[in-house]
């Protein structure tokens, strides 16, 4: 694979979102319409106790990705009720067209005491072309289970041969690496299937091998090109990943011919950090999509997408 970077196509600080939100446009996820491409992302407000709350917003690009032709100026999706899995933020949200509706798989966050958060994956539905979404219920469609004890999040859903596939991540460890510091999480990629997009069956195994103990794998995204399935995801160290570019998020790559067995080979990803740029320290939260028969990759750069997101186009297999 070889990707050509088209640059940072969205800059939060040059957008009107900064009037309502404080920062971030994380985990851009595309939904392709006839005349435009809608890109959902998570942006942040501060709550009364000075913690963050992530909210979903969107921008609509023309199909050359040179111009923003519309954006959300309203609440796309309310946060969950008191005590619910998505009470303290939704980040990210993965949209998919299902018949004449749009489903979106939300990653809901809720705050804990001994660790920062727990999470779950919810389903919301839009009947107005993706402008607003409503929950199908107050609880999650995918959550912790016997062998996936916490941090079930980052659902990405695709239909292949009439089966819904979800790739997501689950936590394996909360660990304190340095005295007097908060516990840090470790998570890896899992897979579930469904016939209706609502009831899911987990495969109950880690599907992408870790390169080392304590590697974090996040936000899998999958696309089919000819007979092969390609997965991008991001990976980082479990600690010291916020300010140390050597341990921070980078993109990983794996491929499969049967959706069961995945071969990881990051060296084939065909994309890497730039030098002295918006994506020179970090690349994270990838999202693959097709538009006009071209393959595109959305992602965030430095600081976990604090300032915006960028786009790359596939130029070689």
């Amino acid at each position, binding site marked *: 694979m070889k990707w050509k970077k088209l640059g940072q196509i969205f800059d939060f600080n040059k957008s009107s979102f900064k009037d309502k939100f404080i920062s971030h446009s994380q985990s851009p996820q595309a939904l392709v319409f006839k005349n435009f491409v809608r890109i959902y992302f998570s942006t942040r407000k501060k709550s009364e106790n000075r913690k963050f709350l992530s909210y979903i917003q969107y921008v609509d690009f023309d199909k050359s990705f040179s111009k923003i032709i519309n954006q959300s100026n309203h609440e796309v999706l309310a946060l*969950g*009720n*008191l*005590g*619910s*899995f998505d*009470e*303290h933020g939704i980040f990210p949200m993965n949209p998919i067209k299902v018949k004449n509706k749009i489903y979106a798989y939300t990653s809901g966050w*809720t*705050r*804990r*005491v*001994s*660790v920062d958060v*727990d999470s*779950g994956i919810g*389903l919301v539905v839009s009947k107005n072309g993706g402008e607003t979404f409503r929950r*199908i*219920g*107050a*609880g*999650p*469609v995918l*959550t*912790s*289970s*016997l*062998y*996936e*004890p*916490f*941090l079930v999040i980052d659902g990405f859903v695709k239909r292949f041969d009439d089966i819904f596939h979800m790739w997501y991540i689950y*936590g394996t460890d*909360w*660990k304190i690496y340095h005295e007097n510091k908060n*516990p840090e*999480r470790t998570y890896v990629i899992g897979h579930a299937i469904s016939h209706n997009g*609502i009831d899911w069956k987990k495969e109950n195994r880690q599907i992408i091998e870790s390169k080392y103990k304590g590697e974090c794998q996040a936000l899998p995204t999958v696309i089919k090109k000819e007979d092969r399935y390609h997965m991008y995801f991001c990976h980082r160290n479990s600690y010291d990943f916020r300010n140390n570019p050597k341990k921070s998020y980078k993109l990983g790559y794996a491929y499969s011919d049967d959706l069961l067995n995945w071969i990881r080979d990051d060296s084939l990803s065909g994309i890497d950090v730039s030098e002295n740029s918006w994506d020179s320290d970090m690349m994270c939260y990838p999202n693959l999509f097709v538009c006009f028969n071209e393959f595109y990759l959305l992602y965030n750069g430095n600081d976990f997408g604090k300032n915006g997101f960028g786009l790359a186009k596939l130029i070689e297999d």
Partner: protein
Amino acid sequence: MFKWIKLGKIFDPTVVENIEWMHEYAQAPATLVFDDFVRVYFSCRSKRDKQGQFISYSAFIDLDRKNLFNILRISDEPVLTLGKRGCFDEFGTYPISIVKKDNDILAYYAGWTRCQSVPFNTAIGLGISRNGGKTFEKIGNGPVLSYSIDEPFIISGPKIRKFNNRYFLFYVCGKKWILINNKPEMSLKIRLAFSYDGINWEKHNKNLIIETNGINESQASPDVFYANGKYHMFFCSWNPLTFRKTKSRKIGYAYSKNLLNWTRDDSKAGINISEDGFDNEMVAYPHVFELDGKIYMMYLGNEVGKFGFGLAALQGELK
């Protein structure tokens, strides 16, 4: 109306000495009958820490089968360990329910985690005992029954039963956290899940028991017992809007032919508070069991079992 004759208090955890983790409370009794004794599992609480927080542990006492007021032994350690950091059962295991499976004994328990916006959340875990029920090992770090679309939080109060080679797990789920005087109070409903192996569960996804005390009525302790051609459920219920003041939780009753459709008739329950004693404010969290041809009920007294549980015997039959 059924007629329950109260026989007295069986166990008071506040008089037990030198067990740090069993400071007070003996909640949600669940029996397992052995040849010479009746083992009663229950959950107790440690002393509160500086922040006023406590941890619930599950334990057992063994009662002399010939005289249930004779306590033969108290478990010398909790029957379940707490979960790892970040797990659903890091801060407590309460309540617990027991069933035999071949040579093993299975324990279903609600694991507790602490939250910021509400005090806690729970999900149901599974432990397996290979030492006759003295301790239970978990087979994974996560729950066997967790949150889902219509059951957003507080999956708790498991009561495991086996009928016709199939496992039935009666439990409660939270439907709403309601702020009363700025304090979150929960509205719980009785639910049901099915399993053939005790590990993989299919939820029924319906409330089993209609409310008689407003739509926010909380229901708990769905204790099901089969007798005379039907299933009898004793449970308890309360109004989350007023119960802190009234201290009232009541034992309710429902029956069913098929385990799915239940007819509620609290007027038949036949047990209420005493005039004085450890249960003069509250009689709650019932557990019905049969021993040597007699049917008994264990129940919690005042302050949800802070001072232990009592025993009553049924006069007549469950019909």
